[in-house]
């Protein structure tokens, strides 16, 4: 014990040692990379073999490796040891209480941040510059947060693995697109209609698959997602085929102000602002934020009702549920329908935001991403799902920003192409590091005497 304590740096990280580590690793890396990367053989016009000298590139790569090793030795390893030592000691109840309070403050702070985010961005980069940050990051991430929370009802709470969630997203999007164009109804009328239609399709899917469980259910839902997409591609008279539907009307500010440039009550004109699409983006941001919060609110309330508890019990043990007098058929159907309804809401928002829908947007990849968000977040955890959506969607959006890497890797380097590679790598790392998702703690829904935190030793899964 004492020898171990001695070998661990006591007063912060040991930078000297870390630097030495880094330099050694960089030298080894250069020795390897020098011949491998630094020298390249090529043919010139006269078909002669020539050697291209790329030692500079090899040096840059070696420096990156060395720097990585330095960071690992200086910060990551000491932090990991410290963390390992801390968890060894039993966690006291008082500490858990403070941790729970901190988590509550954090989520309130996070919510406040979400509400001021567009204002913050506009004040930092101006109205025109804010479009990218509000639209690509804000709105895009929030759509997936909402989809994740909707699917969380089906997968996280009721435990039904649904791989075709994108079908309901498509139903919502096409409902809005078709009804708005053909019947000139406003977004605010069609939002509930899209939700109801998606819920209806959830029921239609629910009936035949009720007897299925686990893998079989997953396969059938996957097929359902594909069927919807193929119908949309091939039924050209109805959906416009793969060309999709364009010029879908924008959302209006409850009919008071429009965001159409030509409209007389255009928002920017009425308030004498410079014409910009940024106002619409900010409006969409708040709209999707409120829709996502509605999803979260409904889910949290439902969990405390008998139906929500029945969902969770269904996930745990179906036979036990039936022996307790729960109608498992109806319970599963409600989970499917309510999950689908939120997918439909998100879909109609998506159609209004894009102004264009086509079957291309509703491929299986979308379903897979949403399922990945739910699983990564920790099934059933709202905060976890939101964090996972930020990591997955924000992460891929960030890749577009990495064009400076072209300076390092040459002009034909396109970070976007590595999206899926990094995506998979990140999933593997997270699953190794946190196998039950970002937030694996399940909040109990019932308290008899008072809300109290239970020591972590007592809430881990055990065997009887």
């Amino acid at each position: 014990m004492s020898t171990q304590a001695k070998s661990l740096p006591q007063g912060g990280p040991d930078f000297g040692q870390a630097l030495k580590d880094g330099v050694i690793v960089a030298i080894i890396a250069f020795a390897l990379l020098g011949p491998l990367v630094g020298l390249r053989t090529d043919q010139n016009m006269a078909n002669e073999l020539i050697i291209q000298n790329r030692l500079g590139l090899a040096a840059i790569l070696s420096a990156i490796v060395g720097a990585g090793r330095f960071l690992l030795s200086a910060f990551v390893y000491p932090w990991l040891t410290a963390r390992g030592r801390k968890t060894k000691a039993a966690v006291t109840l008082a500490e858990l209480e403070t941790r729970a309070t901190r988590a509550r403050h954090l989520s309130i702070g996070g919510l406040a941040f979400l509400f001021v985010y567009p204002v913050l961005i506009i004040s930092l980069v101006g109205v025109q510059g804010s479009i990218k940050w509000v639209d690509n990051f804000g709105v895009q991430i929030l759509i997936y947060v909402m989809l994740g929370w909707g699917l969380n009802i089906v997968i996280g709470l009721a435990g039904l693995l649904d791989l075709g969630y994108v079908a309901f997203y498509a139903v919502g999007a096409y409902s809005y697109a078709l009804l708005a164009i053909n019947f000139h109804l406003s977004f605010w009328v069609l939002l509930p209609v899209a939700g109801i239609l998606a819920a209806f399709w959830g029921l239609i899917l629910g009936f035949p698959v009720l007897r299925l469980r686990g893998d079989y259910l997953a396969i059938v839902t996957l097929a359902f997602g594909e069927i919807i997409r193929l119908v949309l591609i091939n039924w050209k008279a109805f959906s416009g085929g793969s060309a999709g539907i364009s010029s879908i009307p924008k959302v209006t500010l409850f009919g008071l102000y429009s965001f159409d440039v030509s409209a007389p009550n255009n928002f920017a004109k009425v308030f004498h602002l410079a014409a910009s699409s940024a106002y619409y983006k900010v409006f969409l941001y708040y709209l999707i934020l409120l829709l996502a919060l509605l999803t979260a609110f409904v889910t949290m309330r439902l969990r405390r009702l008998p139906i929500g508890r029945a969902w969770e019990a269904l996930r745990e043990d179906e036979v036990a549920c039936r022996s307790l007098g729960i109608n498992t058929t109806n319970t599963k159907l409600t989970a499917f329908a309510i999950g689908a309804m939120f997918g439909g809401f998100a879909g109609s928002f998506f159609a209004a935001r894009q102004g264009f829908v086509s079957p291309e947007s509703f491929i299986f990849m979308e379903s897979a991403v949403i399922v990945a968000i739910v699983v990564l977040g920790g099934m059933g955890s709202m905060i976890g799902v939101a964090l996972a959506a930020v990591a997955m969607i924000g992460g891929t959006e960030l890749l577009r920003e990495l064009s400076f890497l072209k300076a390092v890797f040459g002009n034909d380097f396109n970070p976007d192409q590595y999206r899926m590679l990094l995506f998979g790598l990140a999933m593997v790392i997270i699953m190794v590091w946190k196998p039950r998702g970002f937030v694996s703690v399940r909040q109990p829904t019932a308290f008899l005497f008072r809300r109290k935190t239970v020591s972590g030793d007592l809430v881990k899964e055990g065997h009887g």
Partner: protein
Amino acid sequence: MTEAAKPLLTVRGVRTYYGNIIALKGVDVDVAQGEIVTLIGANGAGKSTLMMTICGNPRARDGSIVYDGQDITRLPTHDIARLRIAQSPEGRRIFPRMTVLENLQMGASIDNLEFFDTDIQYMFDLFPRLKERLHQRGGTLSGGEQQMLAIARALMARPKLLMLDEPSLGLAPLIVKQIFDAIRELNRRDGLTVFLVEQNAFHALKLAHRGYVMVNGVITMSGSGRELLENPEVRAAYLEGGAH
């Protein structure tokens, strides 16, 4: 005492199949109000199948099951449960990720919630351990505690008939005694009718008013608990060597 009592559960000529394999070959069982009736038998005799058949999963192919004057042979499982037949299935089947309190709530959810507070207090009197573990996850309880939770969850539905499938399975003798004492107490205090499927023949027959012995899907013997305990055949097959 059984002659005067009103029949609560009447099973007549029930045959149950798993695919083409016959598991119950025409079973007759009676349970009167206020009785503890036990069903003993070797592994694979069909004891659990009978209990599951009463609950409608699997369904009986022939015969009839009448509960409280109502034919329940063709009723869906969840509707049978709502007639206040509570079942503590084999292997406990508590909800592992939900807390003890939530498990108990699940048991009560089909019935009127106004009794919840008194009922849960009663469960704490019966099984004080559950009160200590109230906010723990079901899956973190010991086997005996899980069994107590399974019984308490079944009782939260205020059943008229409590069916227990091997509550002593895999438990230490002391815990088995606690659980059997609790069953006796429930029967004496509230007149609760109990149908008990057990391998632990000695304890079960000592507890029960009447017992049935099942062999290969047929009832071969029946009688009062004491009669069966003293029966040489029963002793030879189920008690000698295995008795505590």
